[in-house]
């Protein structure tokens, strides 16, 4: 069992579940989006931790630096991509939320659903 050794991964998984809890259980849409961001952050933490290596240095070449000592640059590049996509998703979600609030005056999911059914009746 490597759970104690891999505690970075374990923290990322717990963070993921915290984010999922927020997305499922909270009724406020803004809080759901915050939960989504927590989930995204946990994935970033997980991948960055995979790229770590003991006693490693930043993957930037300098004189007299042995490339085999560098940490893994690939997860860092992937996370940079991921962060930009996360920003895009959050921006789009927030703009929809702004529109919802202007239309209905509430961000509570259960009240939003109720008002929709009332209008349909």
């Amino acid at each position, binding site marked *: 069992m490597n759970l104690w050794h891999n505690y970075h991964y374990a923290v990322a998984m717990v963070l993921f579940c915290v984010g999922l809890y927020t997305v499922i259980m909270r009724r406020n849409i803004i809080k759901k989006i915050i939960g989504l961001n927590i989930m995204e952050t946990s994935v970033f933490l997980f991948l960055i931790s*995979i790229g770590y290596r003991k006693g490693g240095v930043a993957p930037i070449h300098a004189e007299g630096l042995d490339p085999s000592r560098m940490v893994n*640059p690939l997860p*860092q*590049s992937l996370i940079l991509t991921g962060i930009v996509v996360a920003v895009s998703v959050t921006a789009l979600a927030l*703009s929809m939320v702004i529109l919802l609030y202007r239309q209905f005056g509430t961000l509570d999911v259960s009240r939003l659903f109720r008002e929709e059914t009332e209008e349909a009746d």
Partner: protein
Amino acid sequence: MKRVISLLFIAALALLLLYVVSRMPPMGEPDIPTAVRVVPRYLEKAEEETHARNVVTGVILNYRGFDTMGEVTVIYCALAAVLAVLGREKRGRIRDYVELSGLRSSVIVRAMVSLVVPFIVLFSIYTILHGETSPGGGFQGGAVIGASMIIFTTIFGLHLSSVKVPQGFRASLEGVAVITFFLVGVLGILGGGNFLTYAWPKVSESVHPALVTWLTVLVEVGIGLGGAMVLISMLFAMVREEGADEPMA
């Protein structure tokens, strides 16, 4: 009842994930599967192949250039979607910005912000231009510019900030990241290689490293400028101030 089921589901998922994590190879060891295949080659060859001392920049802009170009397109599409949902901010005349700012911030806060913001922008320019030799790059620098405008807008209000970064200026620069990336890619074809090959076979060996470095910096500047403008436009589209939508007296 629904609450209990959700909690049970999340608990089960957490246990499953923790079990999987406990069976993964130990973190930080040099011979774990993620560190043995393509990565040593990147680390060995990146400097001579991409002429970027920062391997991360080399991977982003050169080895995985297609990926990054798609990503730049993604953030541009996100801006297009935000603008389609919310619309651009209304052009208004400048009014007394202190009165318009929702925060009613104190003199100290305003003085500090107007003092600090130029240095934040200076730092972001440094971050963008030194992306291939030090930590940083286009995305990071662009995000820093966006953050500086968020601070500025929070304190001084939308009207003054939309004077500092006018709508027409932003609209003409939002797509510059995609365009720069694409043009540099096409330059690779004109040089006799493939799309996005910074390596030009026709160029002599002595010019080649400098050329690749400058093309990388060009792409970084494009990404930084475009990304910053996209972020600022998203911010301005979301900010609404009291009285901003009404016609000015």
